[in-house]
């Protein structure tokens, strides 16, 4: 079901992006416990105002869904898969790959796995950065350590579902730009609905439509998250994978232009 030779080549092809991206995620995520500590120090014993930065969990949560994080996570998960099939098709290397005795579903599954590896590594890097940041800032005692594995799993699932959507889009088009537009469009539309709903009353009733609304790192860290919400991302993953495995093997792959 998976071609290890292909997986090795895919990861190798993206290794610079992965290494640099993961290093940036670690640095980015360690900033938030430090910011939290600086915020608390500035208050100097005064009552903490309401808001995300009033708790370490809230601050970490902001880091998880900050636009910069979304760009980073997106590049390292959906970004790996969105150009995998359509990119090979556009370069003309897909027919070389398909000339080997590998079923199309195996190619699809291997490329999908690479996206999940990216999402998992990114989530790991974020949690790792958070731990390092908490150590640097001296707020380790406020960190709910036992909730870090669920946070890691939720992050990996959230971005893994987008990676699966991206590979489904990639396998459906001959060129990367349409697949990229659809994937970025999905992420942006969800994010915009979430952001608008958070400060605009008119949009608030529709906030639940956003996938970001169902991914709350703060709730996970504070043990108030509803585990059933994970089903939303599992469903998105399954639907995308079903489409990808249905569509790609049936597609005609004409000669690249």
């Amino acid at each position: 079901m998976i071609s290890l030779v292909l997986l090795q080549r895919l990861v190798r092809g993206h290794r610079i992006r992965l290494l640099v991206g993961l290093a940036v995620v670690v640095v980015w995520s360690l900033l938030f416990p430090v910011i939290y500590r600086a915020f608390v120090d500035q208050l100097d014993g005064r009552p903490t105002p309401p808001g995300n930065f009033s708790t370490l969990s809230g601050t970490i949560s902001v880091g998880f869904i900050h636009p910069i994080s979304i760009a980073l996570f997106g590049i390292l998960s959906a970004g790996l898969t969105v150009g995998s099939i359509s990119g090979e098709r556009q370069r003309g290397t897909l027919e070389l790959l398909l000339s080997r005795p590998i079923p199309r579903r195996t190619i699809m599954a291997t490329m999908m796995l690479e996206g999940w590896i990216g999402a998992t590594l990114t989530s790991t890097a974020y949690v790792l950065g958070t731990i390092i940041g908490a150590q640097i800032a001296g707020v380790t005692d406020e960190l709910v350590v036992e909730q870090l594995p669920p946070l890691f799993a939720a992050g990996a699932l959230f971005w893994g579902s987008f990676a699966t959507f991206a590979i489904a889009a990639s396998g459906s088009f001959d060129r990367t730009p349409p697949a990229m537009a659809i994937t970025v469009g999905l992420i942006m539309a969800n994010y915009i609905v979430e952001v608008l709903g958070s400060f605009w009353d008119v949009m608030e009733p529709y906030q639940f439509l956003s996938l970001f609304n169902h991914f709350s790192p703060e709730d996970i860290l504070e043990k108030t998250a509803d585990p059933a919400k994970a089903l939303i991302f599992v469903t998105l993953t399954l639907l995308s994978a079903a489409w990808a495995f249905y569509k790609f093997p049936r597609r005609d792959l004409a000669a690249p232009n």
Partner: protein
Amino acid sequence: MPNDSTYAIQTSALSKHYGRNGEIKALQTLNLEVRPGELFGFLGPNGAGKSTAIRTLLGFLHPTSGSANVLGLDVVRDSVAIRRRVGYLPSGFTVYDYMSGREFLDHMRALSGRPSLLRHRIMEALELSESILKRPVRDYSRGMRQKIGVVQAMETDPELLILDEPSEGLDPLMQRSLQELLLERVALGRTVFFSSHLISEVERICNRVAIVRGGQLVALESVESLVRFRRRRIEAIVARKPLRLTATVGISHLKVASEGKAGVRISCDAEAAAIPNFIKRLQSAGLRDLLVEAASLEEAFMSYYGNSTRNTVQMAPEIATPITRTRRAPAKRAATPRKVTMRPAARRLAAKRKTSR
């Protein structure tokens, strides 16, 4: 499941239509039979359907109707099994730029799951050194990349080689080396199916050739047969003007011109069957010099296209039905001279003709 393994490739009314209503007919009822151990040429202009046929055989495209078997396996149901036994070089071959030549070849071989049996032999023939393979592929010239493409297609010694424009980007010397490699493989019982726009190449090494146009097969013949039925170009110098030359059946484009003291120059196109009688008439008029050029495959090829109107392909009676003829030994074929008669004066005549063009 294995079907009819008598043929390396067999298509039956294979069609591929594109578009919402199937209005683009890339391939129309293609019937093709390629025998094992054959070096088969696939000719046609751009957009004729060559690549569509190849891509259908490899399972990249799904046939609209008809069927095709490769090595006795159905191209739709057994695509993976077919690819296990086939080597393929696509037209406009591209590579993963971040790899070295060696890494690329190792990767492609690993994906094929077969051992590399011929890499060194092919590298030697194509003058690819180990030091070249260590360099990143992005630094390679077009020709070097094509050589890498040939190696990846052939190195596992597949039963069937499907090559789409294999000589693309190769210099004439390397083209000849590649042709020798292909002949070598065929001599060992492998089958080679290749499309080319280099008619001379197909003519030199192929046993049989299929010509496609507008997605339809217009000829499927041995190269010899294809050429044999085409016209010959005759140039002659005779002492005096022969009588009733125009009445000779099978002669066309007759030109008679006085050359003064040298005699009368006659040029025409002749069908093979008309040549003996025509030469007799020339002899009766005091034949001084004679040049008979066998039609090249290119002329045969152009003849098919020249005779066809926009949507109708007129097929010569002898090739209207795909007939298979006795296969020639490729090496012998390569050595067959094209010119029937050539004397010094005739050479001068030919040179003069070229100059006047």
